[in-house]
C-alpha cells in the first residue's frame, strides 16, 4: 500500500481488507486545520478477488458510494459513480468522482495509469518470495527484489523506496521529480496479483517512454490477464499507447470502454489477455 502527499493533493492506495474510505473524515479534518478545503475526490478500484472478505464500507460498490456520499461535504455537488464493464465478469472498474466545480481542471494536464495484473507468471512471481531466515530486513530484501526483477529499470531515473514483506510480497514507490510511480505485488499462486501505477503529463514529449515503460511492466510480471485504467483530465489518446506497446509482446486487447467523470475527466478501461508468449 502507498500514500503520496503533495501540498494540495493526496493519494492513498491500500489492498487487503483495509478500510480505506474511513480515511476521508480525519483527512478532511486535518486539512481544515491547515486552512485547506476539499474540492475534488476520486475513488477507484477493480473487482475484488475475495469480495466477501471485505469489511464495511467496502462490502459493495453501492455501500462505498453511499459512505462517500454521506461523508463528503455538500459543496462537492457534481458527483458520479459508475462501473466500467469488460468482457470478463471478474474484471470491471469502479469509479466514483465528485467535485465542487464542474469545470475543475487539473493543471498541468495529467494522466494516471493504473495497471492491475493477475495470474502472474510463476517464475516471475517466485522472485517476490523471500528465502527463509535470510537475515535481512524488509528494506534490504526489497532492494534486492527491485534489482532481481528489473523493477528498477521501469523508470531508471526514479528514486526508489522499496520493501519486501515476510514471507512474500513487495511494495515500492518511485519518485521522479513531481511524478510518482508505485508497484505492489501479491505473488501467491492461486491469487497472484501485481499492480503498477504512474502519472504523466500529456504534453510531455516522451510518448515513446510510455510505450517502453508499459513493455517493461508487463515483462516483469508476465500476467495472463491485466487491465489498464487511464484517467486523463481532457480527451486525449494516451490510452492508445497501451495496445501499441503490449500487443507485439503477445497480449491482446479484449475490451475497451470509456466514461467521463466530474473532476477526473475521461476514464478509459481496457482489458488484455495473453495470446502467445
Amino acid at each position, binding site marked *: *500500500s502507498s500514500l503520496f502527499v503533495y501540498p*494540495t493533493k493526496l493519494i492513498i492506495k491500500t489492498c487487503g481488507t483495509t478500510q480505506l474510505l474511513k480515511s476521508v473524515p480525519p483527512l478532511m479534518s486535518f486539512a481544515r486545520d491547515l486552512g485547506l478545503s*476539499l474540492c*475534488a475526490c476520486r475513488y477507484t478500484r477493480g473487482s475484488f478477488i*475475495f469480495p466477501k472478505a471485505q469489511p464495511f464500507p467496502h462490502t459493495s460498490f453501492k455501500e462505498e458510494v453511499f459512505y462517500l456520499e454521506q461523508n463528503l461535504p455538500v459543496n462537492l455537488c457534481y458527483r458520479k459513480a459508475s462501473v466500467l464493464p469488460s468482457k470478463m465478469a471478474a474484471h470491471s472498474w469502479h469509479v466514483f468522482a465528485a467535485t465542487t466545480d464542474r469545470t475543475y481542471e487539473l493543471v498541468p494536464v495529467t494522466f494516471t495509469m493504473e495497471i492491475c495484473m493477475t495470474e502472474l507468471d510463476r517464475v516471475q512471481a517466485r522472485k517476490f518470495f523471500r528465502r527463509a531466515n535470510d537475515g535481512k530486513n524488509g528494506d534490504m530484501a526489497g532492494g534486492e527484489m527491485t534489482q532481481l526483477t528489473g523493477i528498477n529499470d521501469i523508470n531508471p531515473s526514479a528514486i526508489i*523506496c522499496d520493501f519486501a514483506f515476510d514471507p512474500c510480497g513487495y511494495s515500492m514507490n518511485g519518485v521522479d521529480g513531481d511524478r510518482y510511480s508505485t508497484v505492489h505485488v501479491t505473488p501467491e499462486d*492461486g*491469487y497472484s496479483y501485481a499492480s503498477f501505477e504512474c502519472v504523466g503529463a500529456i504534453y510531455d514529449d516522451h510518448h515513446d517512454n510510455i510505450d517502453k515503460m508499459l513493455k517493461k511492466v508487463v515483462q516483469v510480471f508476465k500476467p495472463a490477464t491485466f487491465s489498464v485504467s487511464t484517467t486523463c483530465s481532457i480527451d486525449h489518446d494516451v490510452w492508445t499507447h497501451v495496445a501499441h506497446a503490449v500487443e507485439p509482446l503477445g497480449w491482446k486487447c479484449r475490451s475497451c470502454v470509456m466514461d467521463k467523470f466530474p473532476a477526473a475527466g475521461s476514464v478509459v478501461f481496457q482489458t488484455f489477455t495473453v495470446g502467445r508468449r
Partner: protein
Amino acid sequence: MAVSGFEGFEKRLELHFSGDDDPLVLHMGLRLLDFQSIQQVLDAVQCNVISAIGNQYFDAYVLSE
C-alpha cells in the same frame, strides 16, 4: 468451500484541496501534516507507515498491508 487468500486489488482514493493565499499553505499545504496526524488517518484505514521518502515536490510512504 470458498478459499480465501490475500486481496491484492487495491482501493485508491485521490483527494484535491484548495487553500487560501497564505504562501505557506500554497507551498507546503498537506505536507505540513505531522507524522502523528498521518498515523491517526492510517489507524482508521488499519495500516501503518513502514518506509518513507520525499523530495521538494511530495512525500511518498510505503504502507503495511
